[in-house]
């Protein structure tokens, strides 16, 4: 596989990660960012290679997956960097509200355990600007969500390109 093959997923993954971090954009694009990155990634690859051949599903899944991986890596890195610089993030800010909701369930011992874990993460972020547990958590959830949505985007992109190719031929 040539290096060029990684370029569109890298660029689109980075773009998706940046857009995920920007709060204003997220409020109206929601879950569309990563799938669109997947679509764009496969479309750019098709343009770079100047091929008129239809895209196969393996290739579409691969592109979507790689875009998701790059989006995960960049989004997690940017989140960690911003958290380190600001010593706070949306998780820390939303913790009192989360605690209020969780306390509503009257879980007693379980609540204490859950809350102490969350508070430990929040304290680490406030004091050191970094929490290993929080980072591992967002890396894992970013990986799962972004790769799934990236693959869906790749498959949609494949449909789009193959329909266009069919029309042109």
């Amino acid at each position, binding site marked *: 596989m040539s290096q060029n093959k990684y370029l569109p997923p890298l660029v689109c993954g980075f773009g998706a990660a940046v857009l*995920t971090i920007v*709060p204003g954009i*997220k*409020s*109206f694009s*929601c*879950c569309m960012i*990563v799938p669109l990155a997947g679509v764009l990634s496969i479309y750019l690859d098709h343009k770079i290679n100047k091929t008129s051949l239809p895209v*196969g*599903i393996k290739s*579409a899944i691969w592109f979507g997956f790689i875009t998701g991986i790059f989006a995960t890596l960049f989004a997690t890195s940017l989140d960690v960097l911003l958290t380190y610089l600001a010593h706070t993030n*949306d*998780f820390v800010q*939303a913790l009192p509200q*989360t605690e209020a*909701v*969780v306390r*509503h*369930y009257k*879980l007693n011992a*379980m*609540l204490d355990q*859950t809350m102490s874990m*969350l508070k430990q993460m929040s304290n680490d972020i406030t004091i050191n600007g970094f929490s290993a547990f929080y980072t591992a*958590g*967002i890396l894992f*959830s*970013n990986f*799962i*969500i*972004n790769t799934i*949505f990236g693959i*869906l985007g790749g*498959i*949609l992109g*494949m*449909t*789009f390109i193959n*329909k266009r190719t069919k029309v042109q031929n």
Partner: protein
Amino acid sequence: MEAVQGNTSFNKNKRLLLNLIAGFISRKRAIRIFLFLSLVLWCIGFSFNSLFSGTVAAGITYPFLKKIFHMVCHQLDEKTFNINGAKLFVCARCTGIYLGALASSIASLFYIKRFSLRLKLLYISMVPMLIDVAATTFKIYDYSKMLAFTTGLFFGSVVFIYILIAIENNFMDDSY
């Protein structure tokens, strides 16, 4: 020698079992069932807090599910449905998209013929949603949860069919 014979017998049984399952479920139907189950799981995930409101499971999973679904949705309170005394983890538009996809996946289990759609329908399904997003962003009219939900529902139900077509056309067997 006995181990080899045991292994061969195991492989034979495995093949028999797989053939038996394949007799009931073709590859196409298996894909549709898989997509349906995945969507059911996803929908249970974002509505877990509402479905199991007041239970220990909902309390423990709340912070983690909220964080996970925050990856795919802004979760603004004023744009989220409140069901059974608890907020969903995704906004009204995302709820519509996922429920639309789920509705299409249920329909796909019963309508077993191969779907064929023009790309134009995908663009058309996006239009109401994009108009609604633009209109609420530029304050042409106020945000309405029901409108966001409805436009999302339409888009979600159509986009699922495109994904299904793409998968089926590539993992196709004509044993239907």
